[in-house]
């Protein structure tokens, strides 16, 4: 009998997370499209994009202990790469293969910078969405981790990066659309963006990508790498003394998180129809963290569910009390970090484990 219980627990530990992911998948892919209006479903798609970035933050911050306050940069790299392609697609659909985006004629001298050219190609764009943030994160991470810059220093540097990135975008109106960002896309890899069926398809792609990211992270957490990452978070020096290089371990987590943020950003552009500096700046990066902190940074599903909840809360509160949203976000940070430092999801398991200990004690 006791043996059976232990087997059950072991099975639960192994397959429980998969069950959780399956529930999320069913909720997002089956239930939501059935019950939500197209408008609400599109909104949910936006939250899913934030959740994809959130899963990465959970990996880097929750498991790796690196407070990444500049994920907006990578979100933006993916978002802008996708948006540039969509913008070119829209231009080419009306103006032939050499057409250039409208805003360049409006604000610029009617010529397109050379680095836009490759984004005419869809496959290249997809490639860039995955590789650009990986390269950027590798260079930055290598420079930071190898010199053992960590903790608050790391957090400040990433946030400074987000500020610099957003300022750069605002200043380059001729190349990136400046403050307005990139918008008015008409098609997505040949599919008309105004067709509700296609919008639903794009939502589904985003939801599937979120599930894929969750599975990837689940496998990472189960692996030796996952163990090492947690060990590095909790006692970096010991990991070093055991012969591992914490810099490499952190670098991998940081790069994976960056790629996930980029994927989220890449889906964000077609779903919302716009990507602008305010979607990727320091405030946006902090907003991404809010969901992760709420849901439980070191859990598997916590970051994703937290990001969805905060996204929903943002829409709900902005609709009901347009001016008060910032207060709620500020209070959310204070209350969650002060009283539920490991997130609401963890508080639940802490509560149940406390009850369980009591039972054993009895």
């Amino acid at each position, binding site marked *: 009998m006791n043996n059976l219980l232990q087997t059950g627990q072991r099975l639960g530990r192994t397959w429980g997370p998969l069950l959780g992911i399956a529930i999320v998948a069913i909720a997002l892919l089956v239930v939501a499209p059935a019950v939500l209006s197209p408008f609400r479903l599109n909104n949910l798609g936006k939250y899913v994009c934030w959740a994809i970035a959130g899963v990465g933050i959970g990996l880097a911050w929750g498991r790796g202990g690196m407070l990444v306050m500049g994920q907006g940069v990578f979100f933006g790299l993916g978002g802008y790469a996708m948006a540039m392609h969509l913008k070119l697609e829209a231009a080419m659909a009306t103006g032939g293969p050499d057409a250039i985006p409208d805003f360049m004629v409006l604000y610029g001298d009617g010529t397109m910078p050379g680095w836009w050219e490759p984004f005419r190609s869809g496959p290249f764009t997809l490639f860039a969405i995955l590789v650009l943030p990986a390269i950027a994160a590798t260079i930055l991470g290598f420079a930071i981790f190898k010199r053992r810059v960590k903790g608050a220093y790391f957090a400040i540097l990433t946030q400074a990066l987000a500020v610099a990135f957003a300022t750069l975008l605002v200043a*380059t109106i001729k190349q990136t659309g400046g403050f307005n960002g990139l918008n008015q896309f008409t098609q997505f890899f040949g599919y008309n963006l105004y067709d509700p069926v296609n919008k639903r398809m794009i939502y589904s792609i985003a939801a599937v990508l979120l599930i894929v990211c969750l599975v990837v992270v689940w496998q990472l957490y189960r692996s030796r790498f996952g163990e090492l990452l947690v060990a590095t978070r909790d006692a970096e020096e010991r990991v070093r003394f055991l012969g591992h290089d914490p810099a490499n371990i952190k670098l991998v987590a940081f790069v994976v998180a960056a790629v996930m943020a980029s994927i989220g950003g890449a889906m964000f552009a077609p779903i919302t129809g716009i990507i602008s500096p305010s979607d990727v700046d320091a405030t946006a990066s902090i907003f991404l963290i809010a969901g992760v902190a709420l849901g439980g940074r070191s859990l598997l599903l916590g970051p994703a569910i937290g990001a969805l909840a905060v996204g929903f809360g943002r829409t709900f509160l902005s609709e009901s009390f347009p001016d008060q949203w910032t207060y709620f976000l500020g209070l959310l940070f204070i209350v969650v970090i002060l009283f539920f430092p490991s997130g609401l999801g963890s508080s639940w398991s802490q509560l149940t484990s406390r009850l369980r200990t009591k039972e054993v004690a009895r």
Partner: protein
Amino acid sequence: MDAFTTPLLAGTATGALLLIAALGLALTFGQMGVINMAHGEFLMAGAYTTFLTQQVVTNTDLSILVALPAAFVVAGSLGLLLEVSIISWMYRRPLDTLLVTVGVSLLLQQLAKDIFGAQGDPVQTPGWLDGNIDVFGYHWPYRQMFTILLAIAALVGLGLLLKYTAYGRQIRATVQNRDLAETMGVSTRTVDRVTFFVGSGLAGVGGVAVSLISGTNPNLGTTYIISAFLVVVAGGLGQLKGTVIAAFAVGIVTAFFTDWFNSSMAQVFTFALVVIFLQLRPQGLFTVRTRGLA
């Protein structure tokens, strides 16, 4: 000559401003490990105090002199309130203070927006600061010189406080070894509060200088906080001289980049320079040497 003196002098003034902001940050970060993201909003509080003082004391020549101590007390009290109500509960997890104070910063910004409006208000420059002096072809505004004098005064004041007063000794003892200081009878909790008050108050004084240059604005804090933190990171902890050198270096370098390219490229380049600098000196310019593993 013009292309050289203009950024140099303007940059020195920016550096002085960064120094006032960074002094408080370096103090609280170095002593308590607390990363106060709401520090920029204390700067904002100082600026709004200047604006409010001018509504009461209509003589602009006098109002700035009234505003300086008022801003110190207002911002200092805000800091003290923050310390007592929130930060004192989370000394065991310093990295989390960063996120909590981000929340406080958002609250204060929105509060300022709701009270004073999103537009920001102009601050009258007093007559004795209105004007400029010709330095090698650059019309150096008195306001910028005033900022530099203010920074020097803040630095000297803080230096004297740390070196010669009982509180200063206790602060230094707490920074060096908190447990040992406590054993010797230093009430480190009181010391923490004093440090927070002084550090935040300095930000308020910085806010007065900011308001003279750019008026008040609810988002004023966010403009300075990141640069101020970069100064703290590059300067190293535990010693004021690192902060001083880093502040002027960041201010002047940014001014030169702004002159050569534009202000947004200057931000990007300054950030890149700080990251490169940390490759050479990961602990910043100066640091207190300890035997622990860092």
